[in-house]
């Protein structure tokens, strides 16, 4: 599956790169807005520097003086993320269509609404599995000795692991369903999801790819959270793009591989 995905990415790397750059451009735009806004608000206030350097109290005291601006920035970020999600209903089938040897625009247009419907159907298994993870975390959190150490706090979440594995399986199935829609040139999102769930749970090996992918994502995010604190803005941005480019490539390879797998069935 991985090899097939890598072949597809090699063949259609320009389209993949274009999509990645579009995503990066959206994020860069948001970053610029945040930078200029915070610079104007806090450029002459050393308290904000202390906050960014890790003093949580200083950060809280600084942010609350411009609460409205901070909330507005958060909404702007949310709007951009939502916009990207909507755009993905177009770009996603286009990319998969290209991997399948079809014209990007044709596949994107034909499967746009199918992808929208699929995302709505996907909410059902996602909410269910996330609820299972939440209940598991709550149960271990309730029975574990109280946590006083900052990292041991994460250990109380071990009850969420079965649920998170199911989330990974569902995420894998959703991607299968996308590949299924494009490979069959179909529009029945619900049926595609059911077929994909069956495929996922009858051939569970690809779930391992998702678990590895999820763990790598979580580890890198944690690393960024911890190691990012002392880094300056520009370097941080570069590290971020390297990480996200790697993430995107991994995802494209997985998607291409899934497409090949679905077509072979």
């Amino acid at each position: 599956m991985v090899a097939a995905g890598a072949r597809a990415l090699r063949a259609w790397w320009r389209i993949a790169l274009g999509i990645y750059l579009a995503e990066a451009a959206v994020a860069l735009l948001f970053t610029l807005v945040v930078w200029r806004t915070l610079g104007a608000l806090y450029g002459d206030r050393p308290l904000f520097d202390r906050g960014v350097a890790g003093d949580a109290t200083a950060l809280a005291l600084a942010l609350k003086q411009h609460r409205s601006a901070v909330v507005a920035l958060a909404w702007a970020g949310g709007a951009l993320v939502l916009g990207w999600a909507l755009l993905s209903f177009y770009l996603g089938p286009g990319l998969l269509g290209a991997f399948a040897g079809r014209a990007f625009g044709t596949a994107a247009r034909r499967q746009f609404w199918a992808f929208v419907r699929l995302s709505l159907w996907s909410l059902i298994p996602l909410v269910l599995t996330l609820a299972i993870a939440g209940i598991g975390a709550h149960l271990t959190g309730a029975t574990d000795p109280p946590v006083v150490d900052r990292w041991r706090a994460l250990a109380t979440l071990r009850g969420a692991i079965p649920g998170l594995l199911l989330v990974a399986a569902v995420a894998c199935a959703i991607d299968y369903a996308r590949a299924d829609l494009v490979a069959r040139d179909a529009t029945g999102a619900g049926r595609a999801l059911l077929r994909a769930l069956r495929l996922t749970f009858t051939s569970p090996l690809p779930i391992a790819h998702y678990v590895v992918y999820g763990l790598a994502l979580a580890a890198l995010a944690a690393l960024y959270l911890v190691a990012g604190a002392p880094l300056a803005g520009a370097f941080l941005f570069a590290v971020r793009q390297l990480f996200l480019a790697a993430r995107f490539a991994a995802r494209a390879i997985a998607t291409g591989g899934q497409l090949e797998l679905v077509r072979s069935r």
Partner: protein
Amino acid sequence: MRSTWLVLLVACGRAAAPPIAERPLPIPDGKAPLLGGAPLSPRLASYRIDATLDVAAKEVRARETLVWKHDGVEPVRAVPLHLYMNAFKNETSVFLRESHGRHRGATKADGTWGWIEVPSIQQGGVELRPQAAYGEDETTLTVPLARPVAPGETLTLDLRFTTRLPEVFARTGYQGEFFLVGEWFPKIGVLRVEGGRQRWICDTFHVASEFFADFGTYDVELHVPRTHAIAATGVLVAARDDGDGRVLAYRAEDVHDFVFMADPWMQVARTTAAVPGGTVEVRVYHRPEHAAHVPRHLEAARRTIETFSRMFVPYPWPIMSVVDPPSDAEGSAGGMEYPTLVTTGGDWDVPGQKLLEEVTIHEVGHNWFQGILASNEVDEGWLDEGINTYADGIVADAMFGADRSSIDGLVRVGYYDRDQILLGMGDALSPIDTKSYEFPDFQDYGVATYYKTSSAMKTLEGMLGRDRVWGALGHYAKKWAYKHPRGDDFIAAMSEGLGEDVRWFLEPALRGRGDVDLRVGAIENRRADPPRGIFGEGDKREARLPEDPKAPWESSVVVANVGRVPAIVDVAFRFEDGEVVTATWSDRTTWKRYTFHKPARLVEVTMDPARKIRLEGNVLDDARRDPPRTGAAATAAARAGFWAQVLAGLVGL
């Protein structure tokens, strides 16, 4: 979804629970009610109560003998009684009108009303009840006496009453099989003498107010089921089985209230605290599912007792009971103080947060700030809640470290830092020194009474020195222990203890609106060239236009305190070559200009660099730099962009 699952799980848990079993007859504590023998207070209001807890009917039926000593200056012809439980009788009570059935996040259950009926009040065999009249609502009752009581005489009243408990939502009542029985018996008001005149203080029960009562002794016999664990104010002096159940006799001395808890599932854990004059047994009553939290409650209670006994006055009673209510009663019964018995909250544990310890420290701390220093919580809530909140931080900082005594997780926040953050979140509309029922809402009451008072005290500590302020607070405690101090008494005692008049700060801080508000004005730098222009006359006229690039810089800045509370403030000035000059601005004026002649430009000014001034909501403009720098903004923006991109990757491609 989550709550549905939890309901199912709880239901399964209930179904699988073992039947309630009888407990062994409790062994009396075998301790004197006081660690020292001698009375500590005037003991003006003492009670003997014989009470039966009917767990099925959710009622307490009792007989009470009230013995009240008249230490006023005029004869008393009528006495007022508190009937607190009538606050929950119907929706015309002041408490329910003000609260709309909500109290600190808990909501009153429909139809579970609570009330107290007092069918008989006798003075020397003469029935007084028919002449008694309710006050603003049925939470106070004025009882005309058959015979006036002269100053120095003692009044004895014999009462019968029945108290119906509500489902607990405001610190008294039942929840399932758990009972917290507080504010449950008729209680006499406080006769206060001021300016040669006496007046009764017996306020209507308001939602934001707590209590005020005279010290005395309590001899209480409780008739309770054999199945229930009991915790109560004072010490257990006798226990017997009377055929129907247990009779437990408690005695408490030099206290001003009595409360008890009953529950069939509670377990008890113990430790000891060493105080001058003896050892205090610390007990935590908890259900098995909260066992993991017990060591934290025990340690927090022990540290509080030992610290406050050392700093203020020794804890005088041999037992301190901490009740951790069951999960379904945490919000409604947890976090309340009574003498020698407090409630805390085990379910309030959030990983990384110290809220669990903080609640225990706070409630145990109330045994000093209101328990021993019995101020009027209705009129001057800050005097117990606020000063206690400040003092609690001393214990929390010692236990966890000042930089992480509130949150120690992915971020770290200190106890007093938290207070300052909360202080700025909601600017109090009312002065700290406002009657509890005159605040516009509960938020205003909370911000002013708890956090603003604590921040004011921390500011005083920062300005005058920790040891001096702690010493002065100890002086106040020793001077007013087992009495009824007022705000003026506190300010006077603090001035005495500090050896200087601190009304300049405490008066505006406690009795005015607003706070300290420091501001750094624009930084001005210019070359201190020799004066330019046309100098001299006639032949000696000459033009001087020197521009010396090596001339020193003249830098100036105006620092200001535009708040309503004056302060003594340190100021740090940083120059471009790295030199830092510090000064103390101590004349308490509104503003001051600082001017320097230095080889380098002034680039940054920071007022209060050590963050000693905590009574300030807006600290952002306490420092300024010139020119501005946006490096931190870039770093923050890069992080925001990263997480936005991660989120975009999760919801999109």
